[in-house]
Every structure is written in structure tokens, then in C-alpha cells.
């Protein structure tokens, strides 16, 4: 495992923990951005250039901007003081551990023994440039591509429907903006 | 003489259509205006049913001998092997006759709950139709459908016009019955599949038709045991047999008189009928082994019911438990491989149907008059309502199985028949007879005799008009059956032979001496 990979992976994991760990949503949002970027880096290292780019654009760009916008809009303080019980946290982490082990063990067991040579000769085939992906999208995955447009449409319309209401009052039912507690 | 219409189906369809007919004016939203016409209509329908039944019997008897063997078989769901198969032999005939008579009596009975409009008659007619179906069906699934369906009208009538606790009572009734029949349902399916697996069926599908299932010996003892127990549970709850009678006290306390009469007279009988019709042919080995336990259960139920009845404080509960006690005789009768006892059991079932219905109706009129069912609020009524007192006396006397009443025939045959097989349990049952005399006479004494204990000594309230005719008719039937039971017995015994006894005889694995 090259040093580069190691560093990026480490950042990714660290930022992921950060997302979960920070009490303040804003900071977790930022660490999520870091996380997404690191993932993009991993994509790049894996040779999925197109994905790396779109990851940066779509995720770290569009989505996270949206998220941040909403966060600003609601200008929230950090999560209210009530901590979760230690028991529950332990339980959660335990369960997470079980899942992690049960999922990863067989995977690692299965793919540990892939000769480097095959990866070498696959490297060219799995070179995910714009051209290659584009060809696939417009030939073999035509249908799915069209359908994904439908997905986006649903997203738009749904958002509109939920956000827009006849008698718009942006102030919540009780308490001022931001629901100060 | 041949019958133009499909005779057996008409027994089921006519009352059902009649029920719809009752509802027709009800949907026109003027609920109680047409009450009288509805009543006449309902009486007419149930009378028609009775007539049809009589016609069928006559025709069949004329065409082929005393034993009726009418059948109606149609494919229903071929791919599941479910057929629409009705059959009327001596056994089904007596029970459907009972059904027709009781329904007519209950429908024609004038006293019905206030606020009971057309729905009352509709539900009763539906009840008649479904119970008929249960007595006629020979396809197990069809039987199960009717077995469940007959619960609903009774339930509805009870929940609509019952006492204060009516909803809980009916829920209890429902749950008990469903819990009981659930496993039976599964066993039925198992049988049907087993037939297929054994390759005993024509088209390679399941088969639920009793004759098909009975004629093949395809169950090993374990299967027989499990399935038999499942069936038994269902019927034990329906009859009910102790200790599965948890639904009974509430039901009989809450249900309106007519419904109580209908339930007590008919629903339990389906259990008795089904044990003879289905369990003996299907599980001969199991039944042969379970016989003694069944007999014990019956005998103990007789004593148990009697003892509990003695401790009751009100008329209706006393009747409820007394019917447990009386049905114990039927159970005792069907426990053993004895044509005599089994015939007696069927006869007893019929006569108990008549008697208990009559009792519930009569007692109902007494309770309505007094506005109370507690013994402490009754007494000395013989002077106030002599006619009711007379009928009540007749029916009580019939209930304690005095000779020349129908129940004597039944109990005598049962006792004499099962003495050979289970002398000890028969003796226990006899003790029940004495206790029966005790509580019955006590009830009568505390109701009719003694100083006239009457909260507001009103005159009148005696049975009158058409009700007298009904009671007289029932009394006449009871006594006539007591003096001339031979025809009915002659009808029942061959059917019992075919359905139960011969299956055991055929089953060589059962070694039992039996007394015919």
C-alpha cells in the first residue's frame, strides 16, 4: 500500500470519525467535505478519474453546498446537551464492530489472493476516463441513464412541493426562527 | 318422486336469500316500520326450509328405502382439490331437521330484544343457513368454512342485542372458537396434502372429500394422534367439553334469549356431529385409543356441570351449566364403538337441542317478566303465570330424562350402550343423573314454588298467543320422540354404522370387542 494511499485513507477515516464525532453540525459538515474529497482522491488513485472529478463537483460541490446552505438557514447551535447513555453508545459501537467484522472478514478472505498481475492487466480496462464511461452510459446503460433523469426530476419536484406551501410562513409554529431552546 | 331443484343446496340457499330479503327493507332506511312484515317473511322462509327438508326426506325415503343417501357434488376449486359436496344421510338429516325446527321456533318466538329490527331475523336466518351447511358438507374445507361462518351470525346477534358485557363476551367467544379451530384447519390441510402425497387422488391434486380421505388408510398412528387431537380440540371447544368451556358462561349470560337458545341448541351439536361424521372415519385408531379418555371426559363433564349448576345463583347460568352436563352424555355416547350408545348420543343431541331451546325460551319469558334472573328475586310464580309454569315443568321433567320424554331415550341408550365398554364412567354419569334431578327441581322450586316473591306483583306476563303454540309444539315433539323414537333411531343407526362403526371394524389395527 503506497504512502499516498495510506495518507488519503487515513484522512478519509479520520474525517469520517469527525463527522460522527463533532457536536456542532457545521463542523461535521466541513469534515464531511474533507471526507468526500479524500474519497475523490482514492477514486483517482484507483484510476476512476471521471468519478473523482464528479465526486468533487457533485458531492463536495453541489450537495455539500446545499447542506451548508440549509445549515446556515436554520443557523443551528451544536446538538443540545443531552448526551446519549454510555450503555447505548457502547452497544452501538459493539454492533458496528460485529457488522464490520462480519462484512469485511469474508471480503478480505475472498480477495486477498488476487495476483498483482491480473490487477496490472485490468488496470487499463478499468481506466474510467470520461470517454469510456460515456460510451457505456450511452450504449449499454441507456435505459438507466434516462431513468436517472427521472430521479432528478423527482428530486426537484418533490423539493418544490415540500418547500412551497400555499400560505407561506417561514416562522415555525412556536419559538422564533431557529427554534432557540 | 324426484325433486326438480338441487335439493340440498336449497336448504342452505333459501335461508340465506331469506336473510337478504329481511335486509331489503332495512336498507331502505325506515328500520322498524316494516318489522311485522319482516317477521312474517322470516317465519315463512324458515317454514319453507322445513318443508323442503321434509319433502326431500319423503322423496328420498320413497325412492330408496329408509336411509337417505342424497348427494350433491360439484367441482369447486379443482386445482386445490376442493369440492362442493353435500350429502344427506340419516345422521345429517336428523341434525338438519333439528336445525330447521329450532330456527323456526326461535324466529317465531315473539319476545325479541327491544331495538331488534330486521337484522334480528336476518342474522337468525343466516345462522340457520350456515349451520345447515355445516351439517350437510362432506368436503372438509367446505365444512370448515361453514363451521367458521356459523359463528358470525350468532356473534353478531349477541353483540348487537346482548347485555352490558356483550362485546367482551362475544370477543371471548370468537377467540376461543378461532383458537380451537385453527389447528383443526391445519390438520384438514395436512390431510388434503397427505392424500396427494400418497397419490390417492385422481388428478394428483389435494383432496378434502371425506369419503376419499376415509377410505384410504394413509395415516400412521402418530399422525392420527396429532391430527385427531387437533380436531378434538376444535370440537371440544365448540361442544363445549370441560375444561374448554371458558366462553360459555359469559356467552349465555350476555346473549339474548333467542340467541342463547339457538347457540345452546345447535352450535354445540355441530361438534357432536363432526366427531361422528369426520373423526371416527378419519382417525379410527386414535378414536379407539382415545375412547376411554373421551368417556371419562364426558362422565366428568356430566358431574362437573351438575355440581357447578347447583352452585349457580341465576337461572341462565344454571341452564348453561346444565347443558354442559347434558352434552357430557353425548360425549360419553360417542366415545365408544357401540352402535347403541352412538345412536343414543345422536338422539340425545337432538332431544337436548329441543329441550334446551325450549327451556331458554321459557326461562327467557320468565326473566323478562320479572326483570331479573336471580333466584332471590323469583319464586312462587306458578300462581301468577300458570301456563309458563306448566311448560317449564314439562321441559324440566324432560330435562331430567323422565321416560316417555325424548331425553330418556337418549340417555338410556347411551348408558346401556356404553355400560359394556366403560362401566366405571357410566356409573359416574349416573351420579350426574341424580344431581341433575337435584338442581333442576331446585331451580323449578325456587322459581315457581314457594310464596309469591314478586317485586311488583303484576298479573299477566304469561306466555300467550303464538308463543304457546311454539312451546306446545316443542313439548309435543319432545314427548312424541319419547314415545315413538323408533323411526328416528332407525334412521340414525345405519348412518352411524356406516360412518363410525364400520370404519373401526374395517381398521384391523383396532382390536375391540363391540356391542351392537
Amino acid at each position, binding site marked *: 500500500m503506497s504512502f499516498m494511499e495510506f495518507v488519503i485513507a487515513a484522512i478519509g477515516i479520520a474525517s*469520517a470519525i469527525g*463527522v460522527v464525532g463533532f457536536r456542532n453540525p457545521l463542523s461535521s459538515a466541513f469534515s464531511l467535505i474533507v471526507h468526500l474529497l479524500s474519497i475523490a482522491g482514492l477514486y483517482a488513485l484507483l484510476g476512476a478519474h471521471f*468519478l473523482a472529478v*464528479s*465526486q468533487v463537483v457533485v458531492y463536495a460541490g453541489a450537495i455539500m453546498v446545499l*447542506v451548508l446552505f440549509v445549515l446556515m438557514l*436554520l443557523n443551528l447551535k451544536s446538538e443540545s446537551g443531552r448526551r446519549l447513555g454510555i450503555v447505548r453508545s457502547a452497544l452501538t459501537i459493539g454492533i*458496528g464492530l460485529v457488522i464490520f467484522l462480519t462484512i469485511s472478514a469474508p471480503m478480505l478472505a475472498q480477495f486477498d489472493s488476487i495476483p498483482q498481475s491480473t490487477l496490472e492487466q485490468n*488496470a487499463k480496462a478499468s481506466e474510467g476516463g470520461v470517454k469510456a464511461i460515456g460510451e457505456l452510459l450511452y450504449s449499454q446503460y441507456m435505459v438507466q441513464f434516462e431513468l436517472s433523469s427521472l430521479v432528478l426530476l423527482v428530486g426537484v419536484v418533490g423539493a418544490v412541493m*415540500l418547500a412551497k406551501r400555499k400560505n407561506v410562513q417561514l416562522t415555525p409554529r412556536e419559538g422564533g426562527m431557529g427554534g432557540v431552546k | 318422486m324426484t325433486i326438480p331443484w338441487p335439493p340440498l343446496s336449497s336448504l342452505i340457499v333459501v335461508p340465506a336469500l331469506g336473510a337478504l330479503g329481511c335486509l331489503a327493507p332495512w336498507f331502505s332506511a325506515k328500520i322498524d316500520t316494516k318489522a311485522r312484515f319482516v317477521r312474517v317473511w322470516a317465519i315463512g322462509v324458515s317454514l319453507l326450509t322445513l318443508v323442503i327438508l321434509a319433502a326431500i326426506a319423503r322423496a328420498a325415503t320413497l325412492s330408496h328405502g329408509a336411509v337417505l343417501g342424497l348427494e350433491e357434488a360439484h367441482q369447486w376449486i379443482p386445482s386445490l382439490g376442493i369440492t362442493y359436496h353435500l350429502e344427506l344421510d340419516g345422521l345429517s338429516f336428523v341434525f338438519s331437521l333439528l336445525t330447521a325446527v329450532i330456527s323456526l321456533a326461535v324466529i317465531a318466538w315473539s319476545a325479541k330484544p327491544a331495538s331488534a329490527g330486521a337484522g334480528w331475523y336476518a342474522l337468525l336466518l343466516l345462522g340457520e343457513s350456515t349451520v345447515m351447511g355445516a351439517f350437510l358438507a362432506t368436503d372438509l374445507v367446505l365444512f370448515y368454512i361453514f363451521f367458521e361462518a356459523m359463528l358470525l351470525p350468532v356473534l353478531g346477534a349477541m353483540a348487537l342485542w346482548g347485555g352490558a358485557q356483550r362485546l367482551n363476551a362475544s370477543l371471548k367467544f370468537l377467540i376461543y372458537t378461532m383458537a380451537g379451530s385453527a389447528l383443526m384447519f391445519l390438520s384438514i390441510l395436512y390431510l388434503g396434502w397427505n392424500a396427494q402425497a400418497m397419490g390417492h387422488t385422481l388428478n394428483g391434486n389435494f383432496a378434502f372429500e371425506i369419503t376419499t380421505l376415509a377410505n384410504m388408510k394413509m395415516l400412521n398412528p402418530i399422525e392420527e394422534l396429532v391430527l385427531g387431537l387437533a380436531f378434538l380440540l376444535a370440537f371440544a371447544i365448540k361442544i363445549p367439553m370441560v375444561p374448554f368451556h371458558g366462553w360459555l358462561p359469559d356467552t349465555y349470560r350476555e346473549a339474548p334469549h333467542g340467541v342463547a337458545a339457538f347457540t345452546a341448541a345447535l352450535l354445540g351439536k355441530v361438534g357432536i356431529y363432526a366427531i361422528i361424521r369426520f373423526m371416527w372415519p378419519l382417525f379410527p385408531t386414535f378414536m379407539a385409543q382415545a375412547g376411554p379418555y373421551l368417556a371419562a371426559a364426558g362422565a366428568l363433564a356430566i358431574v362437573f356441570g351438575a355440581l357447578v349448576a347447583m352452585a349457580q345463583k341465576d337461572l341462565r347460568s344454571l341452564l348453561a351449566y346444565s347443558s354442559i352436563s347434558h352434552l357430557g352424555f353425548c360425549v360419553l355416547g360417542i366415545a365408544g364403538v357401540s352402535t347403541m350408545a352412538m345412536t343414543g348420543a345422536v338422539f340425545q343431541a337432538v332431544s337436548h337441542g329441543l329441550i334446551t331451546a325450549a327451556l331458554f325460551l321459557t326461562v327467557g319469558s320468565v326473566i323478562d317478566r320479572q326483570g331479573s334472573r336471580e333466584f332471590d328475586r323469583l319464586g312462587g310464580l306458578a300462581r301468577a303465570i300458570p301456563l309458563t309454569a306448566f311448560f317449564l315443568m314439562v321441559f324440566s321433567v324432560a330435562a331430567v330424562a323422565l321416560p316417555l320424554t325424548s331425553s330418556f331415550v337418549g340417555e338410556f341408550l347411551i348408558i346401556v350402550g356404553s355400560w359394556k365398554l366403560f362401566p366405571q364412567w357410566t356409573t359416574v354419569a349416573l351420579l350426574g343423573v341424580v344431581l341433575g334431578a337435584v338442581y333442576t327441581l331446585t331451580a323449578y322450586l325456587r322459581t315457581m314454588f314457594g310464596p309469591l316473591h314478586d317485586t311488583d306483583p303484576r298479573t299477566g306476563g304469561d306466555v300467550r298467543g303464538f308463543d304457546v303454540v311454539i312451546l306446545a309444539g316443542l313439548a309435543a315433539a319432545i314427548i312424541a320422540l319419547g314415545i315413538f323414537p323408533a323411526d328416528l333411531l332407525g334412521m340414525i343407526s345405519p348412518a352411524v354404522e356406516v360412518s363410525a362403526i364400520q370404519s373401526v371394524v374395517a381398521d384391523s389395527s383396532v382390536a375391540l370387542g363391540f356391542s351392537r
Partner: protein
Amino acid sequence: MDPITSYLGIACLLFTIGGIGLCLRRNAIVLFMCVEMMLNAVNLAFVAFSKIHGNLDGQVAVFFVMVIAAAESAIGLAIILSVFRSVASIETTDAAELKW
């Protein structure tokens, strides 16, 4: 440890972390972010697999997942907004009228 498998391991880890976050946090938006993390973990696995198998189907799948994620975010945030309007909070503990 082989590089590819290490990618898979990382994917599993991230997936789990996202799940844990979902269980531990209460802020709806953070929950949403955790979901996104889980999706990303899966994406990573896809890409790794595509490298293993030497075809691009995995990457195409990832592309579609991104599209879907975008739509999801739009809808999700809209929902969170409307919840905020009615409950004046986006903490899931406050939006718990429906229960039992």
C-alpha cells in the same frame, strides 16, 4: 496487506462508521450526512471491485449512485426544512410524536 483489499476494508469501515453515526447522532442533517457517508463507502467498494474485475460497470453504478444521492439530498433537505417549520427543531428526538 494487498492494496485492493485494503480499499475494501476501508469501505467496510466507513460504512460502519456511518451507521454508528446514524445511531448516535440526533441532528437530522448530521444523520443525512452519515447516510451520504455510507453511500460513499459503497461507492468506494464499487470502484475497487471494478478495478478487480477490470470492467467499468462498477464505476457506472457509482455514477448513478451519485445522481441518486443528489436527488436524495434535495428531497432530504426539503423534508428537514418542512420538519423544522412544524417542530421548530431538526433533532429527531423532538420529531417523535408518532410512536407506539
